[in-house]
């Protein structure tokens, strides 16, 4: 069978000593970075991306993917022991995880999160393996209008899921698209917005922008509000860590439901692990026979979101690999990596680079296995990492960001650009403009513009081409609906407030 053959080839490549070593480096580094509050998966991946420029792409991808799903494991440690999400995908875990830790059950909370993540990750890898090739088959029929519609859908879903401040999300997206236009115009070869600076002719490097926005921007924002971490004392002997049978009984369906939610949400463009964990927690609470227990240390409240965020991390690779469209900021960074290594993700990837794809998916099983072992048996080691003061860690982030920006073109000019993006990232954070849509727009910008212009060349300038073709028409309709969603919600809320106000006034009279 084809699948078994591919799997065999994938595992034999993933099990090579080099690839195993880099998968291990990725998951350990990911767990450590995930445990650090304020450092999310985007920063963790972006800081190491420059090191992979000259690496074998398969090895590099295995390591970076390991970081990505490793961060979700590490974030849990902080969420449970400090009540601060180490990564945004562990926000929901703080609700019940910290309560469990207060009740002296930090061990079972962390172990159940790790085991749930492992089960979810394994199932999601199977889903990815069976789904991605067929998605790639479908995508072979995509032309420029479909790709443009898909990119628009990713942006619109980001707006709908984020929910808060849709106009600021739109501004962030537009800014990202605008920055992506700097450099030589790909269709006509004419320089745009380069201000006569030769270094800008090749465009603004994504790595420079991302280490500035996330590395430097995050350091500036968090130095302003220094925090002290109060790590809850807990016992992590094996006896204290393993969940009891009651915990298992409570968690098994939560893990499976979380996995399902995670897989579904992860595949959607524009929604990532954070959204998935949120939906999984709400689903679990709604289905529970005793919803009162949630927020008071219910183990299902840890198992469901933790399973969901890991499942979403893995299933998010389906659109990335098969369509070349990342669904979240972190997968956008991975897409940038692909482009740097000279590999174009998309339907052709499964033919041109089948070995890479299958080795990556095989490495996900292995990586998750390593993570569950690490996160059950070595919790104290990761807790010790939390005691590193931020004032030691922060200079290291600055150093790595600077070296990363420099290494893009071996030019100090990129370091200056990075500082500029750092200030921009800091200002956006302070003024509440989300950075993730900008990152997605930065990476997808050239593709969005090319497909838009190619589609309009095909149609002779008629916008109808986006709606006339069935797949692109459906995608466009979904995108427009997603954009209308915040507007509709706003209208309903305003009407509701007005009705309440008038009800109040008539009641008085």
């Amino acid at each position, binding site marked *: 069978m084809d699948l078994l053959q591919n799997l065999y080839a994938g595992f034999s490549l993933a099990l090579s000593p080099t690839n195993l070593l880099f998968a291990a480096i990725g998951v350990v580094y990911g767990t450590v970075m995930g445990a650090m509050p304020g450092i999310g998966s985007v920063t963790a991946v972006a800081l190491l991306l420059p090191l992979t420029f000259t690496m074998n792409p398969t090895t590099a991808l295995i390591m970076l993917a390991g970081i990505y799903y490793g961060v979700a494991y590490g974030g849990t440690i902080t969420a449970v022991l400090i009540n601060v999400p180490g990564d945004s995908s562990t926000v929901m875990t703080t609700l019940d995880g910290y309560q469990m830790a207060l009740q002296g059950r930090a061990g079972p909370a962390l172990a159940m999160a790790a085991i749930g993540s492992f089960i979810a990750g394994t199932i999601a890898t199977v889903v990815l393996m069976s789904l991605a090739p067929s998605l790639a088959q479908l995508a072979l029929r995509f032309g420029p209008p479909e790709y443009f519609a898909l990119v628009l859908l990713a942006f619109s879903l980001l707006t709908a899921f984020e929910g808060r401040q849709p106009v600021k999300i739109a501004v962030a997206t537009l800014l990202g698209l605008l920055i992506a236009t700097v450099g030589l115009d790909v269709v006509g070869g004419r320089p745009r917005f380069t201000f006569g600076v030769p270094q800008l002719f090749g465009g603004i490097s994504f790595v420079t922008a991302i280490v500035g926005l996330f590395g430097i921007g995050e350091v500036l924002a968090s130095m302003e509000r220094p925090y002290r971490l109060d790590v809850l004392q807990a016992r992590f002997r094996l006896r204290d860590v393993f969940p009891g049978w009651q915990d298992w009984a409570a968690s098994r369906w939560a893990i499976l439901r979380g996995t399902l939610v995670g897989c579904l949400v992860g595949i959607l463009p524009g929604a990532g692990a954070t959204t998935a964990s949120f939906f999984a927690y709400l689903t679990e609470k709604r289905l529970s026979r005793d919803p009162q227990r949630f927020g008071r240390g219910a183990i299902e409240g840890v198992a469901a979101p933790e399973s969901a965020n890991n499942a979403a991390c893995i299933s998010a690779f389906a659109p990335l690999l098969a369509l070349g469209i990342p669904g979240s900021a972190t997968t956008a960074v991975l897409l940038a990596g692909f482009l740097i290594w000279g590999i174009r993700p998309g339907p052709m990837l499964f033919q041109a680079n089948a070995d890479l794809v299958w080795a990556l998916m095989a490495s996900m099983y292995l990586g998750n296995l390593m993570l569950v072992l690490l996160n059950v048996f070595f919790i104290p080691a990761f807790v010790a990492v939390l005691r590193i003061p931020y004032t030691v860690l922060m200079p290291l982030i600055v150093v790595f960001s600077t070296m990363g920006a420099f290494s893009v073109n071996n030019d100090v000019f990129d370091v200056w650009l990075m500082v500029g993006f750092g200030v921009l990232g800091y200002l956006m954070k302070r*003024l509440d403009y989300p950075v993730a849509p900008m990152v997605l727009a930065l990476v997808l910008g050239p593709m969005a513009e090319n497909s838009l*212009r190619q589609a309009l060349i095909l149609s002779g300038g008629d916008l109808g081409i986006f709606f006339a073709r069935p797949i692109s028409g459906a995608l466009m309709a979904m995108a427009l609906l997603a954009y209308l969603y915040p507007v509709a919600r706003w209208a309903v809320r305003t009407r509701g407030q007005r009705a309440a106000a008038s009800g109040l006034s008539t009641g008085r009279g």
Partner: protein
Amino acid sequence: MWAADLVGAVSVVALGAAVVVASRQLPYYAEYGPGPGFLPFWLGLALVACGLGLVADLLVRGPRHEGRFVQPGSWRAAVVLGSLVGTILLVPYLGLTLGLGVLSAFLMRVLGRHSWFGCVLVGVLVVAGTRWIFGVWLKLPLPEGPLGF
């Protein structure tokens, strides 16, 4: 924060307007279809629209007391930014890796009040580590100063 938010929104409008003006210098339509000025023009216009929406919203809601933009800890962010800029300016004299080593030690000492020994140790490790990873392993031509770092 209200004033800072307003400044942000006005900057969005200004940026959008500048992009619209600049994109008019580029051909909007070429013989093969939409030209290089096509997308920037619409992006600029959309930025102006979004920015005006934000401005209008802020003006309707009126000034509110949601804290100030400058916080008691803002000087720490300024120290990080200022010393990073200083380090980049000093690259021709110190070299990149030595500069970053000094920067790390400086930030640890000023912001973390760590012991001199710890600061120097981390500084030395940063120089050695970056030289090894980026210079030896990745073989990047690192900018060096007269000191040879």
